[in-house]
């Protein structure tokens, strides 16, 4: 190992990095339909929901709230209530908010907890909770987003209520009598 020149090192490093690049960057996009197609029934974000999503990104909600339910024992209750996450569920998410930490609860199905059809009580709870989380849960360590404008709070609420809401719609269509009579 006395005289190693730089050129072969650079070439081998490029090959090694290139193989990982191919495997983790090019292959998922090219070789997998699962990754590049939306789930059945997935609904694109409305303008206010998209704006709420921007606020979610801006305020860094993703650092404490995950948006993925895994098929593991730790998520057993979530799987039982909402089902595990699928790749296609995230089709319209740019940037993704899968998250890495759960200082707070998982939010991927929050729109099925505080459903739109509950109406004002759900919205009032969410907005009140954004403004002062400790009013509802004294142990909460969530920051108080009392500096958001009324419009921003409303958009953020729209976004939160959209999370997973489409799954309920899919379920009710699938189990409605018009579709199931034939079977």
């Amino acid at each position, binding site marked *: 190992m006395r005289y190693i020149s730089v050129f072969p090192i650079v070439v081998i490093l490029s090959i090694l990095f290139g*193989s990982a690049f191919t495997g*983790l*960057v090019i292959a998922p996009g090219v070789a997998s339909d699962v990754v590049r197609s939306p789930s059945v029934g997935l609904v694109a974000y409305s303008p206010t929901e998209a704006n709420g999503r921007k606020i979610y990104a801006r305020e860094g909600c993703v*650092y404490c709230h995950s948006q993925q339910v895994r098929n593991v024992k730790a998520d057993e209750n979530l799987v039982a209530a909402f089902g595990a*996450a699928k790749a*296609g569920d995230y089709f319209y*998410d740019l940037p993704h908010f*899968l998250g890495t930490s759960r*200082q707070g609860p998982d939010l991927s199905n929050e729109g099925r907890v505080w459903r739109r059809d509950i109406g004002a009580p759900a919205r009032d709870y969410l907005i009140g909770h954004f403004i002062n989380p400790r009013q509802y849960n004294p142990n909460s360590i969530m*920051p108080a987003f009392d500096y958001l404008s009324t419009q921003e709070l409303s958009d953020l609420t729209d976004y939160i209520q959209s999370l997973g809401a489409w799954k309920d719609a899919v379920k009710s269509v699938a189990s409605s009598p018009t579709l199931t009579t034939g079977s």
Partner: protein
Amino acid sequence: MTSIQDRNDLVVIANAAKPSPEILPIDRPDGAAQVWLYSGIFWMSVTMLIGVVEAVKLFYPEFLQGVPALAYGRLRPVHINIGLFGFMSMGYLGATFYMVPRLTQTPLFSERLGSLTAWFWNFNLLAGCLGIMMGFSKGKEYTEIPFPFDMTIGILVIAIAGNLFSTITLRQERRVYVSLWYILLAIIPFPIYYTLGNASKFSGIEDAIINWFYSHNLFGIWLTTLGLATLYYIVPKQVNKPLYSHTISFVGFWTLAAFYPWNGGHHVIWGPVPMWVMTASVTASIAMFIPTCATMINFGGTAWGTWEIMKRDIGYRFSLMAYACYVGASLWGTVLAVMSLNAKLHFTNMTIAHVHLGFLGFGVPGLIAFTYFYLERSLKLKYSQNLATWHFWLTMVGIIGYVVSMGISGWMEGTAWEAGGSPQGTMLDKYPYHVARAISGLIVMAGQFLFVANVYQTVNYPIDLSTATDPLEKSGVTS
């Protein structure tokens, strides 16, 4: 081996000794290394301060409430980005700019370019972080710095890589020491994955996979490689004997280069990604056992029997701390990628403990070791042994306190969730650990304060017996 280590300083110092009237201050040898290194130390203090503020907010959320720019969700990306691009990148690039001319026996291609990129990097990072605090975050982890400041970092790295690569190409010393291999691995692929991670507009799961491919490369083949290059350079010099085995460092390097870039997918184990992404990344993460062991044996063998040096050289103690934490954090990472353990511990504070063992345990002491080494061996200045000893113990206690408190809290969370609990349910149980974490952070900060004071004092008021005067007289207080 011996010749590289022994002849290291000859040419550079010979060049430095030649007084040349047309040399501008910006072109002096090691000028670039100094700007990078001192900036790294500055950002290290800043990121620690922000870290402590956040730690307090995690058990006392009303702390500094009401200022949007200081909200937890905005400070956390600032903490991370300053940690990555300020403290780690800049500090270790300082070490790199110091090492490359010595390992190649060639003056740096351009000291001026090196210093200018450092200053530009500083202001760019400051602007980027203010951007995040003002609400312009891009919203994806490790890519938060808004346009155009994110792209500027990529362009600056190309300028830096060009500078270093030109120096390596023009080298006088034909042999390539292991530190240079690591530096080559750090500077060559960076622009590719950095641009990919920051500028790509994929959506959904593809976005997540690419996000983690980018960010794990940022830790693995940018920061870790620069850190290991620094340790491989300073440890043999600190113990004054050659590296234990070049064959082992060869194995360690190439296995690291082969496996690390595949690690990204282990951030989405059990997530909604194709099974083969998970399988490939779990395999690569477990294979990381090989380079970690190689490093462990190599540094362990080099450090064996150096008890006397450890007692007197504080810088060397920090090297050993960085080495121990590197091995610990890497093995821990391998363990956390085991699917059954990941199922329990992903999303818990265990991740935070692991990351901090890497950054706070490996990154911080490694840079400190280099700084003490630089002051003592290169500038030939004597830093305060007393302050340094305090600094060492405070850092040690702080790191252990941090990692242990977060580790226990993470394990508790995982256990509670598997028993059917929710994150809200564990909130009260986590409280004492969150307080312990903040106190540990404060202890590290106290050590950092002593360190900065020590470096400042050593560099600005060097102990030179021939011109020693009354300090009061010098400052004009007595007149």
